[in-house]
């Protein structure tokens, strides 16, 4: 009897002692609907853009836009430029214009519901040119996995910049290994197409991370070997040719702190050691209610640009092995008789995910089917050759 009750006890204990993690209902009242402003004025003559969005509930990744607002940028004591909404939330200046170093600008917004917002006045800061953007391949080490590091050097000899931010657009060439030569047109019918139509694309992506740096602790106002981008060894984006357009902006201390705080907050989310959560306020304020939280930033800065190109061959001396396209391509080749192609394409959305690479056999009796991304790059990139390519 004693052993019996002991066993019961142990079972009870174990049932109860495990930590219990359960979904927790926060309730809809938790959602905080706020205006998010992203505005930037440079010294480049162009149509400048201001993006107005709103926060989304936690359970939805859909982006919400602030439409119907009046947006203008005022230059201190001079002109003001009114923006026009070209698509939901995207406001463009109707004419090209530019900012000037040393002048002060302010973003002023009136939303559809007559709420007025303005940024703190921002003085357009001069930015030194980018000295060098370069890359090197480093093999696997204790501290890093193998891959290509893209670095930047810059220096302000007048030592007035101190705070830097970068953005880049990366463009790379895509050539699927099995460019599709047939286009399925329904039933068991198909047409021939030129492989080059779907077999050569370019893709351009903006930078995904907040890139900021300061040189305040240095004697010289120089940024050395700042890592803009790391490309893992096996990533196919470096398989043919890769280009990066880097834009450099000088910041003032407040803007730097804003971006730095945002970077820290977004980088460490979900790590083992949580950080103190919170919201980083920007420099946009409500005129009617100064305590209203507005997210985002308006900044003005001179822009220095530099474009660079890399090919995989340039890293071969350092031990770089040109990556494969996608390992999954050869593994997933299927052969389908021509009379079954209609049935095959109709099942499981195959017409959306598969491509007919080629036909085989006597009088094209068998089709060789590959996954879409292995035979057609138009989902990943665009076939329009970039003008700088």
């Amino acid at each position: 009897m004693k052993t019996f009750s002991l066993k019961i006890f142990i079972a009870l204990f174990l049932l109860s002692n495990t930590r219990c993690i359960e979904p927790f209902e926060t309730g809809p009242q938790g959602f905080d609907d706020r205006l998010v402003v992203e505005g930037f004025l440079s010294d480049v003559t162009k149509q400048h853009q201001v993006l107005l969005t709103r926060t989304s509930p936690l359970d939805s990744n859909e982006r919400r836009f602030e439409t119907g607002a009046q947006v203008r940028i005022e230059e201190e004591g001079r002109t003001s430029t009114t923006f026009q909404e070209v698509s939901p939330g995207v406001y463009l200046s109707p004419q090209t214009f530019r900012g000037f170093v040393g002048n002060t600008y302010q973003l002023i917004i009136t939303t559809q519901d007559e709420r007025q917002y303005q940024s703190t006045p921002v003085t357009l800061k001069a930015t030194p040119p980018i000295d060098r953007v370069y890359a090197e391949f480093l093999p696997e080490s204790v501290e890093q996995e193998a891959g290509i590091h893209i670095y930047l050097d810059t220096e302000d000899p007048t030592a007035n910049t101190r705070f830097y931010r970068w953005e880049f657009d990366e463009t790379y060439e895509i050539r699927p290994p099995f460019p599709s030569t047939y286009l399925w047109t329904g039933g068991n019918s198909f047409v021939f197409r030129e492989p080059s139509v779907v077999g050569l694309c370019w893709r351009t992506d903006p930078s995904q991370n907040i890139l900021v740096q300061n040189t305040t602790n240095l004697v010289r106002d120089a940024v050395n070997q700042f890592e803009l981008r790391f490309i893992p060894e096996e990533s196919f984006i470096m398989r043919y040719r890769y280009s990066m357009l880097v834009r450099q902006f000088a910041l003032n201390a407040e803007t730097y702190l804003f971006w730095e705080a945002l970077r820290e907050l977004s980088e460490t989310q979900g790590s083992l050691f949580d950080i103190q959560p919170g919201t980083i306020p920007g420099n946009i304020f409500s005129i009617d209610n100064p305590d209203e939280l507005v997210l985002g930033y308006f900044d003005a800065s001179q822009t220095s640009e530099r474009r660079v190109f890399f090919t995989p061959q340039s890293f071969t001396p350092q031990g770089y092995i040109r990556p494969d396209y996608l390992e999954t391509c050869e593994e997933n080749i299927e052969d389908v008789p021509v009379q079954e192609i209609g049935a095959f394409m109709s099942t499981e959305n195959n017409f959306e995910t598969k491509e007919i690479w080629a036909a085989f056999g006597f009088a094209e009796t068998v089709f060789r089917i590959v996954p879409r991304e292995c035979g057609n790059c138009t989902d990943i990139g665009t076939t329009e050759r970039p003008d700088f390519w």
Partner: protein
Amino acid sequence: MKKIILFFLFSFFLFSLQAQEPETQYTLRFDQDTWAEVFEKLEQETNYPVFYTPEWIGPQRISRSYESKSLNYILSDLLQGTRLKYLVYKNRIILSRDIAIVDELADGFLEKGTGSSDTSRTNGTAFTYEREIPRPEEGNQADTSQIMEVGDPSRFNEPGQVQLSGYIRDAENGESLAGVVVYADDGQPITTSDVNGYYSLRLEKGLHIIKTQFATMQAFSQEVQVYSSGSLDIDLRSKIVSLEQITIESERDVNIMGIEMGRYKIDIETMKNIPKVLGENDILLVMLSLPGVQKLGEGAAGFNVRGGAADQNLILLNESTIYNPSHFLGFFSIFNADVIKDAELFKGFIPADQGGRLSSIFEVNLKDGNKKKFSAEGGISPITSRMSFEIPLKENKTSLLLGGRTTYSDWVLNLVDDVSIQNSEASFYDVVARLSHKINDNNSLSLSGYLSRDRYKLSFDSLFRYRNLNASLQWQHRYNSKLQSELSATYSQYNYRVEFDAQPEEAFELGFLIREGNLKLDFNLFPGSRHQFNFGAQSKFYYLEPGFIENFGSESLISNRVLPTERGLESALYFSDLIEFGPRFSINLGLRYSMFNSLGARTVFQYDPSLPREEFAIVDTVRVDNLQAFQTYHGPEWRISGRYSLDELSSIKLSYNRTRQYIHLLSNTVSVAPTDTWKLSDNNIEPQIGDQISLGYYRNIKENTIEASLEIYYRWLQNTLDYKIGAELILNPNIETDVIQGRGKAYGLELLFRKRSGRLNGWLSYTYSRTLLQLDSPFPQERINQGQFFPANYDKPHDITLVSNYKLSRRYSFSFNFTYSTGRPITFPTGQYQLAGEQIILYSDRNDFRIPDYWRVDIGFNVEGNHKIKKLAHSFWTISIYNLFGRDNPYSVYFVAEEEGIQAYSLTIFGSPIPTISYNFKF
């Protein structure tokens, strides 16, 4: 009074008789004789009749021989180590028990009495008389039939009050008893014995009834005729209790009469009435049921007192600092209840001799160890087992206390089929040893050591290990009846390690260590007037290794990093005076002056004060040599408290305190991981300063059966620590750039009703407490919640605790506890947005939401062994259910980014009832 006079058999003793005549020498031999036979032989040999009561003598047998020794020699040798005292008077040998009256009697003393011819000076003996009527009923130590005399009758006519002082000890094992209430007549004056068992009362000359009260001891009551200042030592016998139990010791009269407010003493009795978690008595759990003491939730290490952060409590084990008081995520306290003498919490008024933390002092004292007989105690449950021994090495001189506790839940966990549970590990142990040695009446020495280790791993998560190591050496010295001192030297060490190997590329080991050496010299002076002085000096040296990270395993890509060590010296001088202004009014004036030196070797950063505190604002980097001070803070800490008795049943108390704190806990309360690190004040982190005013009203109602107290307080906090948004506390070499110091205020009300006697006993407490912080700055990064006051992480306004115990019979008792508290504040995600290509979470204002309220019901059932006192072992069974209703009390709510958005999860530690059975024994 007539009755007393009737029994007042005034008598005298004349040691000088023997001194003037050549002392008669006797030769005696005892061989396995009982005491009765011993006394018989004595009578035969000396022809002096021996007066004693048979009940006084034990069953021991005595074997000793004396060759040509004086009667005094023989008697003192024979009776050494017993409770008996002797008196040779007029050819009689008179024995008394427990009570010795020791004094210097001056010339002429005897003339007043019977006119005896002898007038010479006598030293160091007792005089007592036995009334020749049967002893009072068993179990009642109060004995009014005997009147004691203290002092010198020749000085009886001198004007002024006199002082009665002495030591209070446990008659069974000779341990000094602290916190015993000693009072004269109907409560005036009243005092409490100090840690050495020493007490002192100021009295009018004349006849008084001296009484004591102590939870576990029988009440003592004695009529004493006081002629002049003198001493009265009191040995107390324990109540017939088969096992040690706990009560909260705010004694009936102390409630009203004691000067300190917001002070609670826990001794081992009350614990039994509190249902156990996993079969263990838990002293911290008892403390948490007191008003003003709160815990963030199950799984939180540490506790919060009067709206203070967890690091604002100083936890002392025999004067050495405990840095982590919890085992296994806070489920068990690290204190083995069997080896603890008592524990005391100071939260309202902190005496001047203690300091260094803002909110409270929690002192835990180990038992001295039984110096008379071997005893052992233990308990066993499916989760833990514990054992302790008290071993007299030399009777009445030296004893050794040994205790140990372990858990074998690892073994239990492995019995289950569920893989995730099998891969969990949880184990801890703690061991304690204490050697107490009484060198002589004026000197005693003790050496204590403590070690606890923890190791746990939940599922495939990280492996946590931590360790407390403590040692203390205490030397108590009594210079004379007025001055005594205690010198303590202590060492504390706490370190933890975390191994994370869920992903081989990110496997690492992370660690932290703190060491503290402390030296304290404390004096108590009883000048025999209205004053009681306490003064001394203390110095603490800190050494910290704030953190390191090492890659773990061959595939790990983590780079190794070590933060530089920190050193500091905290010193204090203190003085306090407890002044009695009369029967109704007393005041305690104290001042502690503390100083802190930040010491090298270190690289010190200086920041541009006109810029936000960020790395880019570093204007200078200075290398400081080893042990060179680079920053010094100092300041006075006033400790003032007063008491006014309204009448015999009620009093009011008022106190003001300032405390300064030079060591801070960097705690990210969002995570459960016990990876909190300590940080010393330095040139960038200023000491925290707290001021507290509290007012209390105390009243005993229903013929003293119910004690009620109401205390209110208001606290001002300076330089409390909080963190910037995005702050990273672990392995941050510039932690000052992530810490913000600001103002705080805390206020509250504490209500306690307590019934101590009867079949139903227990207490009900209600606490209202708020803590609000304000972090404002010209720089937006250092401003939290627009610079407005906001609730601190540990702000839990309402807290209700009911602890009750109902005795069904002498053997069976039932306990029922209820606890409720407001859920703690939390910063909630309230949305998400994109900026510069990043997905960013929007959070509420800091601590703008609260997790659900906490409530829990526990029940327990105790079955005692039979109540025969003389059986080999006493034992009892405890069956308890923790969280009877299986309430899901979330410990924390956290958020994970998933494909559909961000999902909130709550973490509950004990989400279902936990039954436990344990068997406890003592012999």
